[in-house]
C-alpha cells in the first residue's frame, strides 16, 4: 500500500486503535481467512466500517472476553485467522487462562488486539490501564508481542501479523492525535528492530509511544553533548537479539516502555544480557511497579518521567553518577 503524507496525518489523527480498525477494512479483501470479534468494543476498535462492509466476518462476543478467546480458538482450529479486540487488561489479564490454554498450549492462530494499552486512557484509571499485559503475554510460550511505535506502524503491523501463522498480541497504545515516528514507507518485519537515530554514547531501546519520546529525549540530550542511538523494538517477543548484541558495548543501554517495569521490555533485555559474555549497564524506565494516580495522558507521562524531558533528565543523571 502506498504511504504518503496525507495518509500518515490521517492515521495519526485517528490514533492507533482506530487506525487498526480502518486498516482491517482496507485489508479485508486480501485477508480471506480473517474473522473479527470484539468484546462490545466495536466502535472503540474503529471497526464500524469493517463490519458494515464485511457483516459475515464479524461477531460480537458481548462483554465476555473469556468466551471470545475460546470461540476464536475454535475458529482458528478450523482454518480461520481471528482478530479479537478489547481493552488491553481484558484481552490479556482477564482471559489469561484461556490464552494460556488456547493460544499457548494449543498454539492456535488468534490475534489478540489490546486497545489503549499502557496509560493511554489517562483519567479512566488503573482498571483500564494495561501495565502488566506485556509481562503476562511474554509468559505464554510461543506468543508474539508486537507494539507499534505509531499509527503508520499499525498499518504495517496489521498486515504482518495476519500473514504470520501463530498467536500474536498486538499492543495498541497512545491517544488519538498521536505523534508520528514514521513519515514515509519503510520495511517492517516481525522480530527485527529498527534503528531510528545513531549516537555513540547511549543506546535507547524503546517500544510503542516511548519511541517518539525517546527520539525527542535524544534531541534534548544532544544539546548537552550526549549522543543517543534510538532503537524501535516494535517486537517485544521474540526480542531481536542481533540488535541487542550490536549495542552491548555501549556504556549505557536504556529500555523504555509504557508498561510496568516488571516483566516487560526491559526485563526481556536484561534476561538476555545477563546470559551473555558482555552485559551492559542498563536502565529500565517504565511504570515502577505501582498503580499510578490517574490523570490526563500528558500529565501522567510527566509525573512518571516518561516524557522526553523526564527521560533526558534521568539519563543525564545516570551518566553523572
Amino acid at each position, binding site marked *: 500500500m502506498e504511504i504518503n503524507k496525507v495518509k500518515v496525518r490521517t492515521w495519526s489523527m485517528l490514533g492507533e486503535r482506530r487506525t487498526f480498525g480502518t486498516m482491517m477494512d482496507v485489508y479485508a479483501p486480501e485477508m480471506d481467512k480473517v474473522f473479527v470479534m470484539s468484546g462490545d468494543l466495536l466502535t472503540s476498535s474503529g471497526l464500524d466500517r469493517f463490519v458494515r462492509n464485511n457483516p459475515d466476518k464479524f461477531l460480537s462476543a458481548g462483554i465476555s472476553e473469556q*468466551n471470545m478467546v475460546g*470461540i476464536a480458538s*475454535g475458529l*482458528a482450529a*478450523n482454518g480461520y485467522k481471528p482478530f479479537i479486540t478489547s481493552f488491553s487488561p481484558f484481552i490479556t489479564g482477564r482471559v489469561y487462562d484461556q490464552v494460556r*490454554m488456547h493460544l499457548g498450549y*494449543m498454539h492456535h492462530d488468534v490475534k489478540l488486539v489490546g486497545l489503549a494499552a499502557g496509560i493511554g486512557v489517562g483519567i479512566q484509571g488503573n482498571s483500564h490501564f494495561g501495565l502488566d499485559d506485556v509481562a503476562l503475554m511474554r509468559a505464554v510460550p510461543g506468543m508474539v508481542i508486537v507494539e507499534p511505535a505509531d499509527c503508520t506502524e499499525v498499518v504495517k503491523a496489521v498486515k504482518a501479523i495476519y500473514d504470520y501463522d501463530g498467536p500474536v498480541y498486538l499492543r495498541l497504545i497512545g491517544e488519538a492525535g498521536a505523534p508520528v515516528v514514521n513519515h514515509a514507507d519503510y520495511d517492517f518485519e516481525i522480530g527485527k528492530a529498527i534503528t531510528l537515530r545513531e549516537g555513540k554514547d547511549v543506546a535507547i531501546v524503546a517500544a510503542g509511544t516511548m519511541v517518539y519520546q525517546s527520539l525527542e529525549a535524544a534531541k534534548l540530550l544532544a544539546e548537552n553533548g550526549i549522543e543517543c542511538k534510538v532503537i524501535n523494538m516494535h517486537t517485544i517477543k521474540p526480542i531481536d537479539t542481533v540488535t541487542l548484541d550490536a549495542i552491548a558495548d555501549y556504556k549505557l543501554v536504556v529500555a523504555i516502555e509504557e508498561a510496568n517495569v516488571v516483566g516487560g521490555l526491559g526485563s526481556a533485555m536484561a534476561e538476555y544480557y545477563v546470559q551473555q559474555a558482555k552485559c551492559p549497564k542498563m536502565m529500565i524506565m517504565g511504570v515502577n511497579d505501582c498503580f499510578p494516580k490517574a490523570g490526563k495522558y500528558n500529565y501522567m507521562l510527566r509525573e512518571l518521567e516518561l516524557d522526553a524531558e523526564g527521560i533526558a533528565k534521568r539519563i543525564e543523571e545516570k551518566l553523572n553518577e
Partner: protein
Amino acid sequence: MTIMSIEEIKDLSSRIRRTIIEAAHDAGNQGVHIGGALSMADILAVLYGEFMNYDIHNPLDESRDRLVLSKGHDCLGLYAALAEVGFITKQELKDNYLQDGGFLPTHPVKCVEKGIECSSGSLGMGLGFAIGEALAMKMKKIDNHIFVIMGDGECDEGSGWEAFIAAKQYKLDNIVLFIDKNGLQSDGAVADIMPINLAGALRELGWHVIEANGHNVEDLYKATRQAVSNTDAPTVIIAETVKGKGVSFMENNNAWHHGHLSEEQYEQAIKEISDGNQ
C-alpha cells in the same frame, strides 16, 4: 461412522468401562480420575457407536463430527473410547497413558490425528471452543455436529455461562452438549457445594433441554436422536448419571473421584463389569 444396535452400544459401554479399569490398573500407584470417566461411559458409547461421523483412517476430515471433552480430568473415559473404536491401539494406550513423556497424560492434549480435538483440564472452556468450531462449520456450510461433554460440578465456572448464553444467541443448532450430571465434584456433593438447577436455567436461556437417564442406552439414544434434529438453538442433554457407575464400591463414592486400584479391587471391578452390573 459405525451404526450399532442397542445391544452393540451396550457392549461398547462395557468395553469402554473395562478399558478404563485396565488402564487405571496399568497406571499402578498413580492416582487416576476413575469415577467421572465411568459416569460418562454410556454417553461415549452412544456417540462413538452411533451418532458421531468419524473415520479413524482420515481423522483430519474437515466434515467429521467433533467431540470436545470439557471435563478434561475424566479423559481416561475418552482415551478408552478412542482405544475401543481404533483411534489409538491398546498398546499405545498402555505405552502412553500416564507414562513419562507420553501423549496421554491425566488431562488431554490436542491431537486430532488420534481423535483428541482440544486440550482441556482447565474447566469451563470446552463449550466456548465448541462455539468457534460450530461457527466455522456453519460458515463452511458443513452439516455436522459438535458434541461437548461437561460435568455438573464444572458448571460452577463462569466462563461456561458466557458460552451458554452465546451458543443460543448464535443459534448454534449444530452443538449438542451433554452434562454428565453425576452429582459429585472434587470436594463433595454438587448439591452442597454450589447447587444449580441446570435444566431450568438452560431452558430459561433458550436451549433445547432434554433430560435423560445417562446409563440407559435406549434413553440416551432417543435423546441424542432428538438433539441432532433440533433446529435454531443448541441442545443440552442433561444425563443423570452415577459417579463410578458399573463398579459397586466406586458408585457414588467420591473417594473414586481420583484414586488407584489394589489387585483385589481391580479383579472385582473387572468381574462386575464383565457380569454387566448396570
